[in-house]
């Protein structure tokens, strides 16, 4: 079994799976249960100044479901901790004392002035916590008060606050970024300039999950009204992966550690974030959906994967896929593939046919006995049939060997790499010569 020990910006934990700052890390009782279940670390639910905030007394969450009510997306309008600051500090201290090998990071959100930061940081240091995470991400409620994503959406504020924090603590500082911006590299760069030890992303995405069609009100509905909340869960994973990769491959941001967050549900999700550059990962919705025990699958899964790859440290995964993230104009246009349907696995549902015939390239034939076959003359290898097929590995994309002729274009598949920058249809191609 591979050793999963993690060292993220000097914060050590027995595995790279942390619980993100959120309801599961709101108090001692939960965090003890999390550590007993095997989580490597937690980011304690965001602390603020007293008087503490209050939450709504109606529903805080809204959901998007897949088949069988599998929770795919969760939206929340919960604010930062609604308990007194000292209560949280006391609990953090005893938990860290009792679980010294686990990572204890404390999330913070105070007004955008230096004094409050100067005030709260020593209190956190006194708990023995391993680090702080600056919550510049929450898109709901706190942002209306000039905190959370209201800070995270202004790079100058991020840099300024980060600098204050670094000046007032010896602890590692992680800046949590909001995805509710256009270019994630801007806030990440600001955090880096401010001296952040790392960034964590993504925080939740502004969202309305659904509308009650009887009340004509957004969900979750509080007395007939609804406010936008923060969206998370498996549905946001692709957005998060892209943002992590954007930072990882940015020349300006080299060396900026990333803690990956966003819909991580299984060991595989975690490994994907790490392969795109995340040094560790933070989980929330999966734990809220299934309980803390899921970490056992994440531990065994990542360990088995590393064993199968001959890896002995989680750091060997980190960033491994980053060199393969590129721009569209660098993709090899001489790479030609065709869909292939495995008739032994096919259950003849015909979804590939419906998808291709109605919405794509009419490249799948259907016989009277419901045998579905790919018409290579028409197939552009778009992958839609693979995506809609309910049977894993039934439809695959097979590369055409160089030298063979693509029946769709009548052209021989060239062995050489060639991308858009030199393509004759590219008006800019000649100018570049």
């Amino acid at each position, binding site marked *: 079994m591979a050793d999963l020990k993690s060292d993220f910006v000097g914060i050590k934990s027995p595995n790279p799976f942390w619980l993100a700052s959120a309801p599961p890390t709101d108090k001692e009782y939960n965090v003890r249960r999390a550590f007993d279940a095997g989580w490597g670390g937690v980011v304690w639910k965001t602390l603020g100044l007293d008087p503490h905030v209050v939450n709504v007394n109606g529903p805080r969450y809204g959901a998007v479901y897949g088949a069988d009510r599998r929770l795919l997306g969760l939206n929340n309008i919960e604010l930062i901790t609604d308990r007194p600051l000292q209560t949280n500090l006391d609990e953090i201290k005893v938990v860290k004392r009792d679980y010294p090998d686990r990572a204890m990071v404390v999330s913070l959100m105070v007004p955008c002035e230096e004094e409050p930061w100067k005030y709260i940081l020593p209190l956190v240091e006194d708990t023995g916590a391993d680090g702080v995470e600056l919550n510049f991400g929450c898109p709901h409620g706190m942002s209306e008060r000039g905190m959370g994503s209201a800070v995270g959406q202004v790079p100058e504020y991020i840099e300024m606050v980060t600098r204050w924090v670094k000046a007032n603590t010896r602890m590692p500082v992680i800046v949590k970024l909001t995805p509710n911006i256009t270019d994630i590299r801007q806030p990440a760069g600001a955090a880096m300039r401010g001296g952040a030890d790392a960034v964590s992303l993504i925080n939740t995405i502004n969202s309305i999950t659904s509308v009650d069609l009887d009340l004509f009100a957004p969900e979750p509905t509080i007395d007939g009204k609804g406010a936008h909340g923060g969206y998370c869960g498996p549905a946001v994973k692709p957005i998060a992966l892209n943002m992590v990769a954007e930072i990882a491959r940015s020349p300006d941001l080299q060396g900026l550690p990333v803690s990956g967050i966003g819909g991580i549900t299984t060991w595989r999700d975690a490994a994907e974030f790490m392969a795109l550059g995340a040094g560790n990962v933070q989980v929330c919705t999966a734990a809220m959906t299934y309980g803390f025990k899921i970490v056992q699958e994440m531990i065994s899964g990542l360990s088995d994967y590393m064993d199968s790859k001959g890896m002995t440290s989680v750091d060997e995964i980190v960033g491994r896929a980053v060199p393969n993230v590129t721009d569209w104009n660098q993709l090899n246009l001489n790479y030609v593939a065709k869909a292939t349907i495995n008739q032994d696995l096919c259950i003849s549902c015909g979804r590939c046919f419906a998808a291709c015939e109605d919405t794509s390239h009419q490249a799948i034939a259907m016989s009277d006995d419901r045998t579905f076959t790919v018409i290579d003359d028409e197939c552009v290898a778009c992958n839609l049939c693979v995506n809609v097929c309910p*049977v894993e590995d039934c439809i695959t994309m097979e590369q055409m060997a160089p030298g063979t002729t693509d029946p769709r274009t009548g052209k021989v598949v060239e062995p050489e790499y060639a991308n858009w920058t030199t393509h004759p249809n590219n008006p800019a191609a000649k100018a570049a010569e």
Partner: protein
Amino acid sequence: MAQDVFTPGIVPGRLEPGEYDSHFSDLHPRLDDHAALVAADRCYFCHDAPCITACPTDIDIPLFIRQIATGTPDAAAKTILSQNIMGGMCARVCPTEQLCEEACVREKAEGKPVLIGQLQRYATDHLQEQGIHPFVRAASTGRKIAVVGAGPAGLSCAHRLAMHGHDVVVFDARPRPGGLNEYGIASYKTVEGFAAAEVDWLLQIGGIEIRTGVALGREETLAGLRDQYDAVFLGMGLGGVNALRVEGEDKDGILDAVDFIADLRQAGDVATLPVGRDVVVIGGGMTAIDAAVQSKLLGALNVTLVYRRGRDRMNASVYEQDLAASRGVRIVTSAMPVGVTGNGAVREIEFSYVDADMKPTGETLRLAADQVLKAIGQTLEGEGLPALDGGKIAVDAVGRTSVDGVWAGGDCASGGDDLTVTAVAEGRDAAMDIHASLTAG
């Protein structure tokens, strides 16, 4: 006076009162809302779905399941009922394991089809229990059509004709409408008077008059109906029963399984129904299974179903065979009855084992029997009928017979497989052809 399962002879009250209720309760209780949503989520919404092809009434199954999944079960019911007006009964009695569910791609993928039959019942019950009839009768055409037989074929035909504005009179020899739905299906498949409720619901379309106690060849003749009506649909089913043709067949205790089932269906209290201690059912179809299982449920000690051919030739589905076995019915195959012994009443029945060519092997089987139920097929009865084919009224694809202006469908007509759902389809299709004929030009 207490009777129990060991009491010899044909007696009622072999069980404790509470046992009857559990024995004759719904075989497949309706899915609740949650179970229906879970089941609906398994549907892949296949293209040109194989389940539709497998359904004799061509119900758009993926569409109605999607309508259930999206919280509109009444829309789902309308999708079902627009193709099959007896979708409620078919959801209960269709051998789905041989039709839609056998064709389901998830049967192929995982050996577990989507629960199409149960989802269909969920939707149709949801609509019908509100008393909603989602179809509207067209303006009257002034045309009158006679339908003979108030079973699935006749009622399906009548509903479709009425919907198109024709006036329909449905004749049935029995005291109540419904045909085999009312008289011929095992109780546990259609509990709480569903068959009668479905007929009442169906008649809400208007324009349909039911005349019970009227039989063709008794109170009415085909020639007479042709004179009085613009078209005639024959859907009277098979009124005759095949005989065993063995010595001693007339002894007491030997009766037709269809009568046994009809008595059971019409009984107010099944505890009053007498049943033998040692029951032998002869036959291999659904009727034989229904009679055998219900004998057992009534408290018979030993029930043996004997079929003359191999198990693979039984008309009863494997599901039905397994149901019988699970209820304690012993199934014997490749054995033909050769003699009945007993002094006045049957005491024992003797079988000869036969090979695949129906030749006796020399082996015999003697079964104690105080009750013998014959379920070896029904026959068409009646005179002056249109031309026959294989003992049934010859029809073309839309139900036209050899006689101008006379259509036929259901069990009395050639083709088909004597299923409720097939009868509904044939009645519907004949109605559409009658409508086209009457409105042509």
